[in-house]
């Protein structure tokens, strides 16, 4: 099959898919010899670059373990004018903080979130649940059995992450050094033990 044909198939697939499609699935759809997952992935990456360079209205991006088609963010005002609404409402500072905690400490409970933020976070958490960015993932086996929360695939899609591991480490962001690597998934502040404590 000609490469041009493969491109056409991939474009049509992504245009009609409701969620990101893994390259392996797309390779299965193409279904002919040289176009295995790796080859399809390469075509997709080149398509994505090509579309971006030529400044098309649509883009192809790799998120949440798959590929999808989205609009160029710069076109948002025009789309608002057409549809009379925004694609998504903005997230408040409080919601973003809660989301950051869930993303790094998942699975995590509301009391833990409250403790880390120092304020009750039930309301922003509910917003995130409603928006499908966070989900309930069972209950913690402690007194009261609080719900455990995790980020969702929608979280990856919204923030353009292929995998949750692609989030930058907070230590890199704050310029802190942590000699023993990122914190394990244990109790709250585990990795603080090796902070320089030059007090007396």
């Amino acid at each position, binding site marked *: 099959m000609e490469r041009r044909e493969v491109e056409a198939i991939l474009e049509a697939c992504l*245009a*009609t*898919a*409701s969620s990101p499609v893994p390259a392996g699935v797309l390779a299965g759809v193409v279904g002919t010899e040289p176009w295995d997952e790796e080859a399809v992935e390469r075509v997709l990456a080149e398509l994505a670059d090509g579309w971006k360079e030529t400044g098309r209205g*649509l883009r192809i991006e790799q998120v949440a373990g798959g590929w*999808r*088609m*989205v*609009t160029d*963010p*710069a*076109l*948002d005002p025009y*789309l608002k004018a057409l549809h009379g609404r*925004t*694609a*998504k*409402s*903005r*997230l408040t*500072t*409080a919601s*973003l*903080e809660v*989301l*950051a*905690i869930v*993303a*790094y400490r998942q699975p995590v409970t509301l009391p833990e979130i409250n403790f*880390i*933020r*120092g*304020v*009750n976070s039930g309301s922003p958490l509910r917003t995130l649940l409603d928006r499908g960015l966070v989900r309930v993932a069972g209950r913690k086996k402690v007194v009261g059995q609080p719900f455990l929360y995790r980020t969702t695939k929608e979280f990856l899609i*919204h*923030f*353009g992450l292929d995998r949750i591991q692609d*989030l*930058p480490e*907070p*230590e890199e*962001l*704050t310029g*802190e050094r942590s000699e023993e690597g990122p914190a394990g998934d244990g109790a*709250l*502040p585990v990795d*603080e033990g090796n*902070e*320089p*404590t*030059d*007090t007396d």
Partner: protein
Amino acid sequence: MTAAPETASGSGGGGTSEGLAALSVTLPTFTGPLDLLLHLVRKNSLSIYDIPIATLCDQYHETLRTMQELDLEIASEFLTTASWLVYIKSRMLLPRPAEGEAEDPREELVERLLEYRRVKAVADILHDEDVVRRCLWRPALAAPDAVEEHELDLEAVDLRVLARAYLEVMERHAIENPSPLTVLPLRHTVEQKMRDLYRRVREERLVRLLSYLHTLPDVEEVVTLVMATLELVRLGGVRAEQRVRFAEIYLRPGQKGLDLERVLEAGDGA
């Protein structure tokens, strides 16, 4: 209101502008007490690992006071933290116990501030992403909601299955397409019933209407008869009586005789 010296140090205003400087401090909205503390640490370039707790505590309280003056609602968590800071401050003033096991009263505060600072850093990243990515639209060129095509295994279909499927289809068809309403020609006329009933009432002097209606098998005839009764009552040819609601209705001849044929010919006696 005199601002604490620490407050003034950061904002280079002198004398009279101190009050204004204190106001400007509260302009950012804090998502919580830790947010405020981190803001104060940053603003005064304090070392997070060796916090001058007295300074921080004073500024924290100063900010809360300003918030109160501005009539801002202060969440209870801010007050809890305020008393926590005072507690730490007071413990710092106490002579330390023996060396070695000496635990820094600020330790938990430091840990929580560091943790919260990390959260803020990530939240900032997420915020920057959100600013751009909430402007992304998904193409709505959705595949038609096609019914899933089941590949039919012909050998698995026996005649009974086929027959049942056929019956189901026909049944559904019958429900969805009911046979059209058939209108039968009128078999009873109000005029005829009026004649019959009037004659009967005059002959029998008393007719039990409901009992009579119950003997009629045909709904159409019942309706016609009721209409006829009402018409006769209106014309005064028949008197209807009923003792209790829903009880039997007795029909008797009216006070005056009625030349029914003439009335019917004229179309209306009234």
